């Protein structure tokens, strides 16, 4: 076999798919031959182009731009829209959805799905309301809910992993189970009068300058922060991405695929329980029919936030952006005044469609 090592000036081995290698380290570093001679503008242009068409960052950037655009449009059209409190209210009104979306992001990153989250929100509301009614202390009730919903997630995860049930089916079963349990607890709405819950529901934390948030927002922000850290900086988090990229490969690479796959549903269960608690802070009642279809809102937020439904690509912060986009549309419709709230659903539907097409077009550009 001939050895090329001694050949003079052996050409450097370029990577295939021109300019691909410089993605991820920002614009301006492109060293592909066709950009080398161009001006700086052209180089930054191609950097932006490659960032936009990257399956990793492209969709998130588009969502961020979209959010800002919708917010600006709202600010131009309506008086009083362009205020800090309107933005903060997005967080206040959607803190439970943010928590749900965080759990859902973990699941979808592995290529799975969790349809049970809406029903679990309702279930934890029912448990809270009924136990508080019989005089249990919130200090016991809240941890109990979180444990129960995590265990439910664990069961779902085991079903998926051990019996190889499709996540869609397994979580659908969990959804019916949770919704059914709501009715077992009570057919009717139970209101919450526990002083701690009432306090938490009406409490406002001032941020100065007439701005304020609720305790729920702080909890949601904390959940997001922890999730970002876990996904970015722990082996568990990276394994979540690995499973989405290729479960079989992950297994052959010696990663703890089984454990991670089950844990992801535990996390989603935990987040649903927590979201249920935040939701009761918001409504101060438990009702078996609440949060119907909320799982779909959470999935929509995650997808709009740029997470690929097939797994492997996406960020928690993207999902937060997704929730905010949904929230801002709702706000606009409220400001419009004459539109019925059903328009929210129609807009979200249209947006989802546009967004998925956009993702497809952008990532197809790379080929």
């Amino acid at each position, binding site marked *: 076999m001939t050895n*090329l090592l001694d050949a003079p000036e052996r050409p450097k081995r370029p990577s295939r798919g021109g300019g691909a*290698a410089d993605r991820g380290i920002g614009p301006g570093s492109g060293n592909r031959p066709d950009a080398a001679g161009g001006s700086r503008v052209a180089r930054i242009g191609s950097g932006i182009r490659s960032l936009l068409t990257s399956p990793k960052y492209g969709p998130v950037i588009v969502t961020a731009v979209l959010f800002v655009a919708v917010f600006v449009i709202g600010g131009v059209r309506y008086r009083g829209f362009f205020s800090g409190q309107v933005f903060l209210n997005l967080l206040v009104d959607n803190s439970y959805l943010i928590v749900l979306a965080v759990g859902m992001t973990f699941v979808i990153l592995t290529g799975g799905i969790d349809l049970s989250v809406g029903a679990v929100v309702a279930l934890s509301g029912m448990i809270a309301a009924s136990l508080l009614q019989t005089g249990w202390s919130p200090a016991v009730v809240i941890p109990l809910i979180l444990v129960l919903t995590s265990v439910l997630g664990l069961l779902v995860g085991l079903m998926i992993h051990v019996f190889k049930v499709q996540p869609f089916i397994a979580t659908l079963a969990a959804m019916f189970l949770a919704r059914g349990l709501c009715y077992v607890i009570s057919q009717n709405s139970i209101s919450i009068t526990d002083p701690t819950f009432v306090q938490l529901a009406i409490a406002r934390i001032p941020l100065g300058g007439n701005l304020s948030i609720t305790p729920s927002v702080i909890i949601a922000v904390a959940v997001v922060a922890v999730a970002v850290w876990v996904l970015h900086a722990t082996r568990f988090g990276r394994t979540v991405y690995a499973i989405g990229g290729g479960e079989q490969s992950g297994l052959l690479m010696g990663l703890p695929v089984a454990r991670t796959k089950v844990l992801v549903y535990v996390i989603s269960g935990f987040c649903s329980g927590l979201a249920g608690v935040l939701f009761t802070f918001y409504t101060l009642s438990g009702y078996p029919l609440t949060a119907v279809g909320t799982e779909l809102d959470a999935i929509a937020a995650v997808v709009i936030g740029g997470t690929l439904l097939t797994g492997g690509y996406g960020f928690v912060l993207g999902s937060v952006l997704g929730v905010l986009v949904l929230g801002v549309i709702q706000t606009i419709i409220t400001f419009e005044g004459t539109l019925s709230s059903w328009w929210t659903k129609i807009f979200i539907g249209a947006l989802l469609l546009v967004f998925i097409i956009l993702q497809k077009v952008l990532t197809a550009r790379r080929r």
Partner: protein
Amino acid sequence: MTDPAAPVVEMRGISIEFPGVKALDGVDFRMFPGEVHSLMGENGAGKSTLIKALTGVYGIDGGTISLEGTHVAFGGPAQAQAAGISTVYQEVNLLPNLSVAENIMLGREPRRFGAIDWRAMRRRSAALLQGLNLDIDPGSLLGDHSLAVQQLIAIARAIDVNAKVLILDEPTSSLDSDEVAELFRVIRSLKEQGVAILFVSHFLDQVYEICDRLTVLRNGKLVGEYLVEELLRIDLVQKMIGKELTALDDLEQRARSVVVDESDAATFVHASKLGRRGGIQPADLPIAAGEVVGLAGLLGSGRTEFARLLGGIDRADTGELAILGRVTRLRTPRQAISHRIAFSSENRRDEGIVGDLTVRDNIVLALQADRGWFRPIPKKRQDELTQSYIQALNIRPANPDALVRNLSGGNQQKVLLARWLAIAPRLLILDEPTRGIDIGAKAEIQKLVFTLAENGMSVLFISAELEEVLRLSHRVVVLRDRRVVADLENDGLTVDALLALIADGSVEADDTLLAASVVASDAAPPAASAPLAPTDHAPGGRA
């Protein structure tokens, strides 16, 4: 040589049975520290299965495994890794959505205060890549790199751990000779440190260059263990296939003697100034009916990119393609297929076979797609087709209902080839068609390509193995740095001459033979800075 004292790995009487196939039948296998051991055998002999048995991917139905004298039974690759067995499985098993650095370090990332230390990770993986002389950004996405680069990254991952045993299942199937040399350098230094290395390859040259000892399997049974220096190649081949092989020599004779009769050989496709930004600079390429054109070039020279344009996989942004004299735009592979142009990808797992379908379904797939799904191919015809290709290409197991994902790597490649042959293409583009195929089957496939070309099919042939390119092609087109630098009649061309041209294009490199046969040398100035002047192919080319 090796210390004959104690084997580090010892497998005894290993049996594994899959439904309908006895993949391993009482196989003994051992490896000593500080030796490079090769596992040899035809496609489907059981090499990969033995490796998976050792590393706990498959449970064994019978036999014992011991590592350094103690019995082990690994529950999975993670446990095998922890015990000091580092493995690169056949096919690239990495994660396209993560960065190169992560793919190398995943599962053992350097950490600070419980968090992954990304800077240290990048630094360490950059050093590892450097060790393989691979000049890529560790932060880039794995999926953006070619299969060969990915293969090297998988190797980098495996050698990063301080393993006692390093297993490489067909690590060189996509590599060029200089990458192979790089890998061998690394293997030698590991061997010096006392690591036992298992090296599987269908390239006899490579086996004879690097290995000390080899074990031959045939049909899941052990044939024997031999010292490489005591076994002649011809005997090795005979032990592998159980009979003598003469086909290859025949072919050589035939290839040289067949000359395309240019008077009635109409040009089937003619690419003029066909190019794509970032892929390949505008280039001309006529291919006559019945002509076999080889594309030669280093990794990343643009050979695959060029082929993808002709196959309608990627769209060209400059130039045009004429099919039988009519200018045609190929936007999708489907359009290409309707013009009877077939493209067989080098990446058989992701762009080729459909693992969850049967052998039969995979073979009729393209034909059915071309007919349209409302005109199903009659079952009887499907069976005939499948049977004929199973026989012609010797696909094993010869079971049309087997799931393709359960076939051995080489047999999957044969199924992929059969799919494209089934549409009776007029131009067949083969990107590394013999990757992972054993020498017997390789000869069969080469023979088939030849017979088809004699019957008027054009072939565009890409292979990292230059001997193979030269053996099959009437004409060789050389690419470098994403442009065509020469278009040569294959008439007295040698591998060395081709290599010199590929490496730096300096025609006066050494060969006088070469100087005579370079037809387009004046169109490709050695400096290679000016854009390539149009290659005036027709007049001089056939001289």
